[in-house]
Every structure is written in C-alpha cells, then in structure tokens.
C-alpha cells in the first residue's frame, strides 16, 4: 500500500494542494490531467526531489516523507526515459544492483526474467544511442524494475514513442505489470492511455485531485463540472433536484422540459432537495431508437434532427437538435455500421434516448 496523505507543495506560484492518493498492492493507478496541472511536479514530490509543505507519504506503512530519493524504493521512468548514455544496456539495467554492497543469484535471476520478458537479450551490449524508441522504453522499464521497487512511477510513458508504436508498448506495459505484479503509478495527459492502463484513475486539475475512483466509475460518472469537461463530455444540461430517495434521485430539467429519476448512490450526501445542479451523459450512452419508444422509457426519449455529422474512422459523432421548445443540442457517438443500418443522414429526423443509468449528476459550480 502506497499512500499520499494531505500532501501540499509549491514551486514558484504553483501549488499542489491536499493530495490524497492510495494505491493498493499490485494496482496500477493513473493520474490524468492536462498540461500544467501539476502531474510531473506531484511525481517529483513523491520521489523526493522536491520538498513538501505538509502531508505524509507512506510506503507499506513506513513513513518515508523525510527520506532522500535513494532510500524510498520508488523507481522512476521519466518522460524522456533518460537511459545513461555512457553505459551499455546491461550496465543500465544493473545500475541499481551494482550500487548495492552485495547482490545474490536470486537478484540476477530476476533481472534475467525481466530481460527475457522484455526481449532485451540481443541488445544487452549496445549503447542507448543505438536503440530504437521502443527498445529504449523497454530498457528503462527493466532498469526500473531490476531493484524490485515498492512502487514503479512512470511519467508520460508514451510521449517519447512514435504514435504507430504506442499500442504495442501500451500492451507490453500492461502485460509486464500483470506478470510482475508491480504496484505502479502513471501520470499522463492522455485519456485513452489512462483508461487503458489504469485500474484506478485520479483526475488532477490545477494542482488538486478533483476525483479518484475505479476506471468504470470515472468513465461514466464524473462528479464535478471540471472533471466532466476534462473527460470531453459535451452533453451537459441544467437541472434541479426534486426528490431524494435511498438510491435514486428525481431531477427536473427546464432545458429538456422533463422530470425523471436516475439511480444515484449516496444521493443524500451529495445533494439536497431543491438544489440547482447539472447533469450529463456521455455521447456514446445516447442511443438512437429504431422504433417508436416503448411507454416505460418515454420520459427520456426525444424527437431530434441531425444537424452535423463528424465522420471518423469507425465511430462517428452526430450533433442533433432536440425538438424541445428551446433548442438543445446533444452529441451522439455512433458506429458507422449502426449509422448505415439506421439510415442516419444530415437533416434526418430521429428518436434519441438518454439512458438514465448513464446519467451523472454534478453540483452547480459556485
């Protein structure tokens, strides 16, 4: 268990405020946020390169807050990988072991396993300048894991790698972490990477972690407007809490001219009756009905007209205008096969349905 509790730090006028992160053994935790949100700064603080103003860092229960980087057992692969250019691949990988007063055959066997798993045996005697981008990344991972760290920390692990190789390296990292059961913290600005690699995900914005949670919860249920916007969710509407029940909440929306009930755990903790809120839904959770709606879901089905189509490879985005008195636009992500099957074209009239199960609620920002 790796824990950051109430960590505060500053560099210049930038502040990291009240950072809480807990990473279970063997988990992969991803911190995702835009450029300048403090991701790398947070890593550097965790590693011990930067002083903290407050808070504690615990590794397996031990408080390492005051320890220098070389005593924290945290391995680090920076964004630019930083293989030692004057050392061979083998010397790079063994760098950590060579610093120890002694290391035994078990350690060497472990390094051998890493070298095999990462397919490095053919390049052990090369120098970093003669490696490809993917090879460098693999060597850096082997070097970081060779000391069996309590935590592996990766900063933007794909930024130094060509786009067309990323999928491969991504899968390799996923397999590696599962094979060696390494507790890992990754920071990235890329949502695809975050949702691909992370068991749990935290969103960092402006030096604060605005939400943490398991991957699927983070994907479909952002808990604040900035988080929803960062996730790229554009279907956001104004509403009001009408009624609270144990596990559901009734919302009225003047924009949509509807009142409806959505499931919501701990609704009482987050909302009060009469409160102004926002609610939203991911564009892939908006469905187009083939037939007229059945009576039971009629309350969230709308007549709509297609205003714009953005065609991509296989998923397309429709911008539709709902037939509400005040025009409201909704975005829908749709597979191209579905588009053909449904006969969706520019200007076509449709029936769209918002699935209440995927509707999330946000407090109105102050």
């Amino acid at each position, binding site marked *: 268990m790796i824990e950051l509790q109430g960590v505060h730090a500053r560099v210049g006028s930038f502040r990291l405020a009240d950072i809480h992160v807990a990473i279970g053994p063997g988990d992969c935790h991803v911190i995702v946020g835009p450029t300048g949100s403090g991701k790398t700064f947070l890593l550097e603080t965790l590693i011990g390169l930067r002083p903290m103003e407050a808070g504690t860092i615990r590794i397996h229960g031990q408080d390492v807050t005051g320890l220098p980087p070389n005593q924290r057992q945290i391995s*680090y692969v920076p964004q630019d990988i930083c293989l030692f250019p004057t050392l061979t691949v083998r010397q790079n990988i063994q760098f950590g072991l060579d610093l120890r007063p002694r290391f035994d055959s078990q350690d060497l066997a472990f390094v051998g396993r890493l070298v095999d798993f990462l397919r490095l045996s053919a390049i052990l005697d090369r120098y970093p300048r003669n490696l490809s981008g993917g090879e460098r990344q693999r060597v850096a991972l082997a070097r970081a894991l060779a000391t069996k760290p309590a935590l592996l920390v990766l900063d933007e692990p794909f930024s130094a790698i060509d786009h067309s190789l990323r999928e491969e390296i991504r899968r390799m990292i996923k397999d590696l972490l599962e094979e060696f059961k390494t507790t890992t913290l990754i920071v990235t600005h890329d949502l695809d990477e975050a949702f691909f690699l992370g068991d749990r995900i935290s969103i960092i914005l402006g030096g604060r972690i605005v939400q943490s949670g398991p991957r699927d919860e983070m994907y479909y249920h952002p808990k604040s407007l900035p988080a929803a916007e960062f996730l790229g969710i554009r279907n956001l509407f104004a509403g009001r809490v009408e009624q609270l029940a144990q596990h559901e909440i009734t919302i009225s929306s003047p924009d949509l001219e509807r009142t409806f009930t959505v499931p919501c755990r701990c609704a009482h903790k987050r909302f009060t009756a009469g409160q102004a809120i926002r609610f939203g839904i991911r564009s892939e959770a908006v469905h187009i009905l083939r037939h007229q709606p059945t009576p039971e879901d009629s309350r969230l089905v709308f007549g709509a007209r297609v205003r714009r189509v953005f065609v991509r490879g296989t998923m397309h985005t429709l911008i539709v205008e709902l037939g509400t008195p005040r025009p409201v636009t909704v975005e829908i992500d749709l597979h191209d096969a579905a588009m053909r099957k449904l006969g969706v074209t520019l200007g076509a009239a449709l029936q769209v349905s918002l699935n209440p199960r995927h509707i999330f609620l946000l407090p109105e920002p102050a």
Partner: protein
Amino acid sequence: MNNGFRRLTILTAWALFAFFGVLILSLSGFVTPARLVAVATSPRVLFSMKISVGAAMLATLLSLAVAIPTGYALSRFEFFGKRAIDLALEIPMVVTPVALGALLLMFFNTRLGELIQQSRISFVFEFPGIVLAQFVTTVGIATRMLKTTFDEIPARYEAVACTLGATPAQAFRLVTLPMAVPGILAATVLTFAKCIGEFGATIMLAGSMPMKTETLPISIFMRLSGADVEGMAVLILILLGVGLSSLALVKSLIRRSYD
C-alpha cells in the same frame, strides 16, 4: 529573383573573412622558414614557451578544480548568494585584464597581501604571479562553460540514478561526470588557450622580465620597443598556431559528444 538580400549578407561574411585573411597573409613577407627556425629555437623564445606552457597548465588545472564544483553548484542547486556569484563570474569577461592584474597588484600591497608575499610564495614579478594572473582571468569563463555543460545534462538523469539507490555524489560520479567529459575537455582546451594568450593581467602582476616572466604575448610586446619585426612575426605565428589548433581540438570534441 529577390535574392539580393541573401547575397548582400553573404558578401559581408566573405569580406570579414577576407579582412582576416589579408592580415594573416601580411605575415608572409616577414617570415622565411630559416628565420622561423632560428627565432623559435633561440634560448629566449624557448624559455618563453616553457614558462607560457607551464604556467598555462598550472592555471588551467587550478581553474578547472574550482570551475567543476562551482559550475555544478550553479547548474543544479538553489542556494544563498547564487545570483551574486553568477554575476561575479562575469566580471572577468567584461572588465579588462589590465584592471584585474592591477587589482591583484593592489591586493599584494595590502597588509594581507604582504603577509602572503613574505610567508610562502612570492607572486609579484615572479612565475607564480603569471599563474595567478591567468587563473583570475580564466576561472570565470571556465566556470561558465562548465555550468553550460552541466545545464545541458538534464538533472533527471541524476534523479533516476538516485531512485535506483545512488547517493547524490554517486549519481554525479557515475552518471553526470562521464556525460560531461566532452564538455570538460573542451573547457580545458579553451581555458588553456586563453591562459597562453593572457597579456594584460600578467604584465601588471608579473611584469616583463626577460628569462624570468616573459611569456609569449609579453615577448611580442617587448619586441615592439626593440623594433624586431621579424621576431614578432614568428611569435605571432606560434600563438596563431596554438589558438587555431585548440579551436580545431574543441570542435572535434564537441562533435564527439553523445547524440
């Protein structure tokens, strides 16, 4: 074609080159191979070469011994007085060496200076004065060059080494120092070349005594009063040779640095 602008700037560059070329070519009228050998092997010139090279080697070593840790501290750490030190290092670059030499001379006229003069090594008008003059005029530049060298090696390399268990000193020795070797060698050569050519501070502190403190540049100056134009030409050639070969060495060192 609207290439007139391009042509104009290139012409200026060529003109500048031609200007220096003509200057150097004008030597040819004064030097014959026989004369070159005769002057270059005269006892006085040999002595000048010996003390020039000896002093420059000592001063270069001293400069680097100070410049490597200072350049590293300036590149990596935040500490009290950093800005002031950074500025102080530029003093030798904007203040004339004559003033620096004079400053040293004044220092040895203070109580503390006189104590040092009497107790151990004598600097004024002596060989150690040459070394000190060269050190004072080059240590700032050497430190700047090493700061730049270390600046170009991201601190993240050391951070990675530390997370693998290295102390800061180990990270410096095992990672940064080997990466800095080309930069350190380049700084060494340039510092050496600067030391060989040092004139203003040397003549103020060590004077211009033949067979005692007469370095090569001072020797050129001495031959002015003696109106020994041919001897001057040979000495110019020697100093040009030292300078140009240092340059060539530095260029090849820079080319060999890690990608």
